[in-house]
C-alpha cells in the first residue's frame, strides 16, 4: 500500500481542512468540515436526505471545488492539481454514483470494462477478470444486456463492479444499497468489507441504519451542514 504523507507525517488519502461549500448564492450546504480518510480504512457517511452526502463525495472526487477551506487528495492540494494530472488521480478512486451513470448504449460487460479500456488495456488481457467480477456480483448471465434492461439492483451491482474493476485505493459509494433488498444489501456490504480487507479505503454514503448496524465502523454523520465523527 502506497503512503501519502502530509506535512505532519501522517499517511492520508483524503484530508479536509475547514471546508465550506455553497452552490451559487444559496445557503452553505457544508460548513467548516475537517476530517481525514486514512489508507485502508472503512467509514460510513450518513445523515438525513439533503444533508450533503453526495456533495461531500463530489468534493472528494474533485468534481466540485470547495467555496472555502482546503481539500487534499493523495497529499496534493486540490486547487494545485493541473487538468492533465486529473486522470491519474481519478484512476486511483473508484466511485459508485447514486444514479449509477452507466452508458446505455454499451453492454453491461462493456460498462464494467470501461475503466480498463480508458487505461489502454487490451481486451484479451482483461476479459476474464471482468467476467469473474460480474459473476461475483451476480450478473454473470446479464453481462451482454444493455443497462436499460437491468433492474435497479442489477444496475447498482453493475455500477459497483465498474468502480471495483481496477482495484482503486479509495472507493466512494453513494447509496450503494439504495435499490436492493436486505439480503442483497448484506451481500454488497460483505463485498465492500472484503475489498477493505484487501487494502482499499472505503467510504459508503448511506442513510440505511440497519446496514450500518451490521458492521462496526467509523461513522461520519452530517447534520445541517456540520460533521460529527464517531470513531
Amino acid at each position, binding site marked *: 500500500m502506497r503512503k501519502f504523507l502530509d506535512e505532519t507525517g501522517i499517511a492520508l488519502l483524503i484530508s479536509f481542512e475547514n471546508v465550506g461549500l455553497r452552490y451559487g448564492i444559496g445557503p452553505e450546504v457544508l460548513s467548516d468540515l475537517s476530517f481525514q480518510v486514512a489508507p485502508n480504512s472503512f467509514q460510513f457517511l450518513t445523515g438525513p436526505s439533503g444533508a450533503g452526502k453526495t456533495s461531500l463525495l463530489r468534493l472528494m472526487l474533485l468534481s466540485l471545488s470547495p467555496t472555502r477551506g482546503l481539500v487534499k487528495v493523495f497529499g496534493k492540494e486540490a486547487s494545485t492539481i493541473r487538468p492533465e494530472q486529473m486522470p491519474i488521480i481519478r484512476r486511483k478512486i473508484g466511485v459508485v454514483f447514486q444514479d449509477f451513470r452507466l452508458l446505455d448504449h454499451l*453492454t453491461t460487460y462493456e460498462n464494467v470494462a470501461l475503466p480498463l479500456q480508458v487505461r489502454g488495456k487490451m481486451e484479451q488481457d482483461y476479459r476474464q477478470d471482468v467476467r469473474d467480477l460480474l459473476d461475483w456480483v451476480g450478473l454473470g448471465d446479464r453481462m451482454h444486456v444493455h443497462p436499460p434492461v437491468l433492474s435497479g439492483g442489477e444496475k447498482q451491482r453493475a455500477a459497483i463492479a465498474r468502480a471495483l474493476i481496477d482495484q482503486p485505493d479509495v472507493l466512494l459509494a453513494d447509496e450503494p444499497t439504495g435499490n436492493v433488498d436486505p439480503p442483497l444489501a448484506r451481500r454488497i456490504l460483505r463485498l465492500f468489507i472484503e475489498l477493505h480487507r484487501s487494502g482499499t479505503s472505503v467510504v459508503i454514503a448511506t442513510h440505511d441504519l440497519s446496514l450500518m448496524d451490521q458492521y462496526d465502523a467509523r461513522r461520519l454523520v452530517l447534520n445541517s451542514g456540520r460533521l460529527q465523527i464517531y470513531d
Partner: protein
Amino acid sequence: MTDKEKPSKSATKTATPAAKAPVKPKRQPKPLRSGQSIVPRESVASTALIFVIGIMTFLACLTLGAVSMVNTSAAKWQNDISREVTIQIRPFDDLEMTKAIRDASNIALQFSGVSKVTALNDAETARLLEPWLGAGLQLDELPVPRLLRVTLADGAKPDFVKMREQLEAQVPGSTLDDHRTWVDRLTTMALTMVGIGSTVFLLMMAATVTTVIFATRGAMAGNKDVVDVLHFVGADSKFISGQFQKHFLILGLKGAACGALGAIILFVILGIWSSSSLATPEGDQISALFGTFSLSWSGYFWMIIVLIMVAILTAVTSSITVRRQVNNLQNYRK
C-alpha cells in the same frame, strides 16, 4: 431524445432471441460487445456537416483547378513570348523586300542578347495567313507584310527602344513588336489570379474549420453524459478526443470525397467538351484564352491532396476542440 429511443430498440433486439429460444434449440452465445463506439456514431454523424464539408471541398477544388489552369497557360505564353520579338516589314511599291529583310536582321543582330534572326519564308507566312486567306496562297501577288522572328538568349533584355528607333530610321515600313506590354500584363493577371484563388481557398478552409469546431462542440454537448463518465473512470483528454476524432475523420472523408469527386467530374466534362469543340471558332477562342480547357494531371493530383487535407483538417480540428473543452472541464477551479 434519440439517445433514449436507442436503448429500447436494442432491448427488443436482445429480447427476441430469448423469445425464439424454444424454436431454436441451440442458442447462439450472445455477444459481449455491443459493436457500438464509446461515443455512439449516430450521436456525432451529421448529414449537414458532410454536406457543408462537401461543398467547401468542391469550391476549393474548383478554385484550385482554375488557378492551376490560368497559371499553366500564363506560364506557357510568357515563356513563348518573352523569348521572342517580331519585326514586321510592310511592303511598299518601291521597297525591295529582300534588302529590307537583310538590313533589318543586321540591325537586330548588333544588339547583345539577340541570338538569332529568322525571316519567315513564303511557305511559313502562307501558313500563318491560311485561316484568313485560305490555302494555296501566292505571296508574290499580294502585298503581305513579312515577319522576322528575333530569338533572344535566355533571360536577355536587349534595348528595344533603341532597336525600334534604328529600325524605323533605316528600314522604312518596319515595326518592332517586343510583346513586353503583353508579358507584363500577363504576369500581373496571373499573379492576381493566384492571389485571389489562394485567398478564396484559405477562406474556405477557415470556414470549414469553424464549422467543424461548432459541430464538435455540439457533439460534445450531446454526449455530455458519456464525457462525464469517461472523466470519472479516469480517461485522459487524449482518449476522449480520440473517441470523437475517429467519427469526424470519417465524416470529413465522406464530405471531402463527395466534393472532390464532383469537382473532378466537372473538370473532366469541361475537358471533353472543350476538346470536342476545338475545331469550332468558339473553341479556338477559348483555347486561345485558357490553353486547352483540360486540367493537367498535377491538377487532379492536387484535388486528391485537397480531399485528404480536408479530411485530416476535420479530424484534427475536432480533436483539438475536444481536448480544449475537456481540459476546461477538468479544470478544477472553474
